[in-house]
């Protein structure tokens, strides 16, 4: 098999596979960071963009991937897997998906390594970019923050799918045939998120006072001790066969040649070591998460203190109220990887959540909580009334009923409308208050606005609208109609002239 492949082709192919594996890991991990990825196109090749795609290299991820590969390449029986899992702030974890880069024995001897294989690997990476946004873990990763984070683990060897639960689905990203085997890239993802959601609901039970300690310090400090295991197959030689490839300073400059009408040509890869050193030359900023390479925590979408969203989101953390004493300095120091046109992520300043309201199960649901002091009112939406609310006793405006007044529904509603002005709280049926309308002065006129309003708020009914009279007048009107019509017809010319003057 290998004898059919020229040494140069073999070398090229090994290099392609190695960098393809590294780029695959980068794409998968970056897609689970929780942020939108944005890289720039460049018409002139920069020399370090493998597969003609602008995929940034996060150094820690590359380091982990290389560590997992340990100088080997994905091959037949040696698969490279990236496992994505979710870990809650309480320490529960759950595997979400496993991406597998495998090779099977089906060879394509006639394929051109340096052209066709390279381009097909590029196409496969593009497919991976698209598919990583489609699996369920993507949405979860976009919403990660203080309640849970997404972790990755790279291992080499046999694929382990048992952690994905029952009924996991598989999606194949694509295959590329090579002279030494067919590379396949696929993803197995969990469909049964029930465990997580039931745990979510359990956590919504306790009130805030009990779980207060979760938010006092960094929820994931204990993760410092957690190192995902990178499997190393025992007894395999490291690096001996591939000494020539183990070089992080490699740059790929690909040039292709065409010779019409067919594609029989030779292409050569030239490897140049740039003067300044590493591949990171093109990536000025990168994830600065030195402490926790496997944990991709970015400041939560909602900022340092999560806001209460307008609509409940499925499958994610229930909202918790926050104690303002929770230090905002606790937001993790990790900066998200930036890109060419990066938007600097700032912690939202809206930390001033009212402690009056705790978890919002639904709008206007009046949960019994100690913090809410205004719920004893019978006012509608009393919970939203201003907190600095004068009590009845202190309010000088409140008086006992001065005189009997006709009770009418209008009056009752008037009181509830004006209570915010007067400060009165109509806890009994009707409380007569001296109505002092805003912005009115009573110095000049003997009758002020308030008095006028009170006196004329119940005007007598119009005579024409009273029932006795109306029936009679209606009958009279009907009788007189024909006469009126006759008069109008006689004077039609007058009316027409009048209309003309209007035009």
């Amino acid at each position, binding site marked *: 098999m290998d004898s059919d492949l020229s040494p140069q082709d073999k070398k090229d192919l090994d290099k392609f596979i190695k960098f393809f594996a590294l780029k695959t890991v980068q794409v998968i991990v970056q897609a689970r960071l929780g942020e939108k990825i944005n890289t720039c196109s460049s*018409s002139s090749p920069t020399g370090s963009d493998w597969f003609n795609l602008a995929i940034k290299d996060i150094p820690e991820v590359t380091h982990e991937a290389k560590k997992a590969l340990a100088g080997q390449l994905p091959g037949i029986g040696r698969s490279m897997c990236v496992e994505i899992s979710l870990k809650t702030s309480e320490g529960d974890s759950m595997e979400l998906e496993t991406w597998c880069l495998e090779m099977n024995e089906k060879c394509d001897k006639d394929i051109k390594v340096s052209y066709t294989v390279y381009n*097909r690997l590029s196409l*496969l990476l593009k*497919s991976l970019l698209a598919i990583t946004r489609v699996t369920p873990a*993507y949405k979860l990763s976009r919403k990660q923050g203080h309640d849970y984070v997404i972790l990755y683990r790279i291992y080499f060897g046999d694929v382990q799918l048992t952690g994905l639960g029952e009924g996991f689905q598989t999606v194949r990203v694509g295959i*590329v045939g090579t002279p030494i085997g067919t590379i396949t890239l696929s993803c197995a993802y969990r469909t049964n998120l029930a465990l997580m959601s039931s745990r979510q609901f359990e956590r919504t039970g306790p009130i805030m006072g009990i779980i207060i300690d979760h938010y006092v310090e960094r929820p994931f400090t204990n993760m410092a001790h957690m190192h995902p295991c990178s499997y190393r197959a025992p007894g395999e030689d490291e690096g001996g066969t591939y000494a020539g490839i183990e070089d992080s300073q490699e740059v790929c400059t690909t040039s292709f040649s065409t010779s019409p009408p067919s*594609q029989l040509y030779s292409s050569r890869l030239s490897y140049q070591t740039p003067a300044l050193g590493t591949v990171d030359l093109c990536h000025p900023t990168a994830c600065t998460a030195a402490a926790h390479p496997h944990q991709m925590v970015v400041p939560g979408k909602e900022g340092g203190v999560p806001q209460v969203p307008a609509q409940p989101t499925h499958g994610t953390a229930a909202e918790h109220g926050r104690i303002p004493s929770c230090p905002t300095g606790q937001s993790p120091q990790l900066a998200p990887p930036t890109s060419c046109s990066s938007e600097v992520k700032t912690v939202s300043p809206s930390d001033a959540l009212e402690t009056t309201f705790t978890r919002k199960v639904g709008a206007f649901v009046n949960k019994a909580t100690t913090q809410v002091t205004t719920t004893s009112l019978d006012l509608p939406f009393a919970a939203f009334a201003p907190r600095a609310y004068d009590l009845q006793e202190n309010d000088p405006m409140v008086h006992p009923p001065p005189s009997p007044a006709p009770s009418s529904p209008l009056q009752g509603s008037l009181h509830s409308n004006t209570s915010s002005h007067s400060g009165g709280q109509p806890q009994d049926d009707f409380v007569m208050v001296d109505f002092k309308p805003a912005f009115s002065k009573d110095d000049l006129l003997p009758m002020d606005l308030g008095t006028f309003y009170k006196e004329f708020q119940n005007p007598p009914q119009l005579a024409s609208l009273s029932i006795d009279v109306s029936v009679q007048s209606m009958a009279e009107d009907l009788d007189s109609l024909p006469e009126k019509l006759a008069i109008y017809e006689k004077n039609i010319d007058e009316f027409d002239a009048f209309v003309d003057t209007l035009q």
Partner: protein
Amino acid sequence: MNCRSEVLEVSVEGRQVEEAMLAVLHTILLHRSTGKFHYKKEGTYSIGTVGTQDVDCDFIDFTFVRVSSDELDRVIRKAVAEFKDALGNSGSDGMGQISLEFYQKKKSRWPFSDECIPWEVWSIKVNVVNLANEQERQICREKVGEKLGEKVINIVEVINRHDYLPKMPTQSEVDNVFDTSLKDVQPYLYKITYQITDSLGTSVSTTMRRLIKDTLAL
């Protein structure tokens, strides 16, 4: 050479049409675009770099990846907007189809004009539904998001069959295979057409037009 034809169908609400079409078209174009070719002497060429961008949809629970090229994005958005307007103005019950066709130009001798030979056609059939209330809309958001995910998987499946692709052209032939008008990326030559289905389920006018055009093109 036979033209490969793929049909995708989606049912969306009116305001989701644009984003759904953009998601599908951009996903296809992501796979059918390369970096800019730079030809050097001796018949060799190098390829520029293609950047990518995540796009969140506003009316659908979905994020898609597109090529980082504002020029290309503008062209696609314009075509989709025209399609959406036509769909809205048609007075039909909201059914239409937008097609993305990749073709090659074949130079013909005078007096015949160049032939456009399609090698891959993607047809996206759209069915616009009307929803009664906000709850249905919310469900639709998620459902359409899942459906689009399935479409992306379908697209990727077709593309990774590695069926026919035009041969890489020489410098003189590159405009017969690729659209070299953009400054940052180079998609294969493509054209976007659409047709609105009237209530009888036939699109009479466009079919006639196409027949006539094809006859004349010969």
